[in-house]
């Protein structure tokens, strides 16, 4: 009785207060509400006060709304942990155990099954939930949900923000169509471009064929609905946005394309060099870009909207540092020398190594820069080795350096090991002469070729009569993964086609096993899916295989 009285008094006071306070503009509500929801900061800039387990005070920045309800506010189901949606559109609807028309769509039905019935929220009952953890039935919600101490105006801003959160489908989503685009930087090798496009177009065409078949055949429609929910009736489009000229001019072109045809997300994309302007365009317009095919992704801990396959070329250098860290006690005071070809690739590898090596507290390596046009001769390399007597020699150069490395093999003061980029050596890696194979180690940011062949059965279906030899196998495999991740994510989005929910959904996926990379894993806010790289050596014999000398992800 006392409890009901408390709730009634709380609702009465909130009713009065919420109605009385004038609110800022819609744009300001969005900005201030987002800061409260994501960062735990009040409109004043102060930290939100929160309480868990009834009365344990905690810092609101450590217990933000977004950390459980995610950016989209559409909640999550992970195993048996259910975090309900917290956006106004769903909160202001009654929740019933039976959802008309969605019995066969598990991800819709599960919310209804897992969570208790409740009437629709009102502004007042929602305020009671946020401040006291009491739902409209008078039940107290889980103690894990913090209770936030907000004054009336801040509470009204928060509620207005939640009402707008994931309220309307994102741009690019029509009644029965979801529009995508892919960005192609002019000047990219045409084979690479076609290799990126083929799997994407295959995914789009496959989806559209299903939608057409469902439209023509009620049985297919029912099957499609059971599998995909309302996604089965959607068609996809894939526009090609070609960027020309120097990178400084790309932004205007992107803005123009987007103005003419807003898209839900960018798929893939390809550039032989820069990607930063596309990355910035996506950040500023909040447009997801799934897996562009680039060697030099933008490295950021906080950017949100571009999901990369990996940290690119520099990831190999980082892996080399982690591998050598394991034997640092044996290297002791002996030097590590990086011979760096003065190109973007050489510098990226060296930067990756430098960052990884210094992060573990080691003495920096000695860098020797090779001008871009200067051949690395055996004499020059021996000179470097004689001068520094390194325990480890990193050669960040292409396969033309192989004869020079070979000249070290018989030297008494040769380094203990030579490490190079297997990716950069390309096919020449297989020509390393047998006497040198014991000395030379390679970074290898892919699954081993002999093991990746098992995935051919999945990938080859996209060729549909075309010759695989006409395509770049690595790019085909990358782009194939893009289509698969997109399809899986859209299936799990259960009709809620919001950009933030796309990444919330991908962030909740378990580790995945696709072609090319040993493992791709996601997590909330993670933006580099393949986190590993092998260190390998070439095995013995005339038809050698690569042999692993490290795990995929080294600690």
């Amino acid at each position, binding site marked *: 009785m006392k409890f009901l009285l408390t709730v009634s008094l709380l609702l009465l006071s909130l009713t009065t207060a919420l109605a009385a306070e004038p609110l800022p503009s819609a744009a300001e509500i969005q900005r201030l509400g987002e800061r409260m929801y994501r960062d735990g900061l009040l409109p004043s800039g102060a930290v939100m006060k929160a309480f868990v387990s009834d009365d344990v005070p905690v810092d609101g920045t450590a217990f933000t709304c977004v950390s459980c309800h995610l950016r989209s506010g559409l909640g999550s189901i992970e195993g048996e942990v259910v975090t309900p949606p917290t956006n106004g559109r769903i909160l202001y609807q009654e929740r019933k155990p039976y959802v008309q028309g969605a019995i066969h769509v598990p991800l819709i039905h599960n919310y209804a099954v897992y969570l208790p019935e409740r009437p629709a929220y009102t502004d007042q009952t929602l305020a009671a939930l946020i401040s006291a953890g009491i739902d409209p039935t008078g039940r107290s919600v889980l103690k894990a949900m913090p209770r936030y101490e907000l004054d009336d105006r801040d509470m009204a801003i928060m509620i207005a923000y939640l009402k707008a959160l994931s309220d309307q489908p994102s741009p690019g989503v029509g009644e029965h169509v979801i529009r995508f685009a892919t960005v192609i930087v002019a000047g990219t090798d045409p084979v690479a471009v076609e290799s990126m496009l083929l799997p994407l177009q295959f995914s789009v065409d496959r989806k559209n064929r299903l939608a057409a078949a469902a439209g023509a055949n009620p049985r297919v429609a029912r099957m499609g609905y059971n599998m995909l929910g309302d996604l089965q009736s959607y068609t996809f489009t894939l526009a090609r946005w070609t960027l020309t000229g120097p990178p400084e001019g790309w932004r205007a072109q992107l803005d123009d394309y987007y103005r003419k045809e807003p898209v839900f997300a960018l798929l893939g994309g390809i550039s032989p060099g820069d990607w930063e302007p596309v990355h910035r365009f996506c950040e500023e317009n909040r447009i997801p870009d799934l897996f562009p095919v680039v060697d030099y992704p933008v490295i950021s801990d906080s950017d949100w909207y571009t999901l990369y396959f990996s940290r690119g070329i520099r990831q190999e250098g980082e892996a080399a540092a982690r591998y050598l860290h*394991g*034997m640092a006690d*044996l290297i002791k005071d002996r030097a590590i020398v990086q011979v760096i070809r003065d190109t973007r690739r050489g510098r990226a590898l060296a930067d990756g190594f430098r960052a990884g090596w210094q992060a573990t507290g080691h003495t920096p390596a000695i860098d020797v820069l090779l001008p871009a046009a200067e051949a690395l001769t055996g004499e020059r390399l021996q000179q470097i080795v004689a001068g520094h007597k390194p325990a480890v020699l990193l050669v960040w150069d292409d396969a033309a350096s192989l004869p020079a490395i070979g000249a070290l093999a018989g030297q008494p003061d040769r380094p203990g090991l030579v490490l190079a980029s297997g990716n950069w050596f390309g096919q020449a890696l297989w020509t390393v002469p047998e006497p040198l194979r014991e000395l030379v180690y390679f970074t290898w940011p892919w699954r081993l070729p002999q*093991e990746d062949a098992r995935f051919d*059965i999945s990938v080859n279906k996209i060729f549909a009569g075309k010759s695989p030899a006409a395509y770049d196998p690595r790019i085909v495999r990358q782009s194939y993964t893009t289509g698969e991740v997109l399809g899986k994510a859209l299936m799990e989005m259960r009709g809620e086609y919001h950009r933030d929910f796309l990444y919330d959904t991908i962030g909740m996926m378990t580790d995945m*096993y696709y072609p090319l990379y040993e*493992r791709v894993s996601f997590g909330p806010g993670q933006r580099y899916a393949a986190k590993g790289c092998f260190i390998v050596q070439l095995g013995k014999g005339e038809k050698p295989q690569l042999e692993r000398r490290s*795990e*995929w992800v080294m600690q």
Partner: protein
Amino acid sequence: MVVLNKLSRTTVLLLSLGLSWSPAFAASNDPAEEIFHIVNDYRYDPAGTGGDPDTGHTLCGTRCNALSADYLNYMEPGGWEILKVAADVEMTVPLNNPFMKGNCICIADEYLLRIDDLSRVHPVKSERARERSSEIAR
């Protein structure tokens, strides 16, 4: 008599399965078969070289884990069947480090991987299917 027949057939079947699961059989040269290992534990053996046991143990972690497979890499593409053929096999491999000698003993479960081509007609299954059809017909 019927029971005995059944027993003897079962015995033969179990024996044949036992043979086919033995490591010796698994190491056959059939190109459609592969062996892989999932490493459970490891240790360092200085083998008289005087290598530091702690450093050796750490390095053997990397060395042995490099030999270990992530079984999902075999399961996910589909079209393959995996049979566990031995448990806790001790494999001795050289540490393979330029700065320290010795061996690693990797303790692993051993698996046989072979093509499970669903479109291929399996002779044993076909024979069983024929027998079953005959029984039903009778």
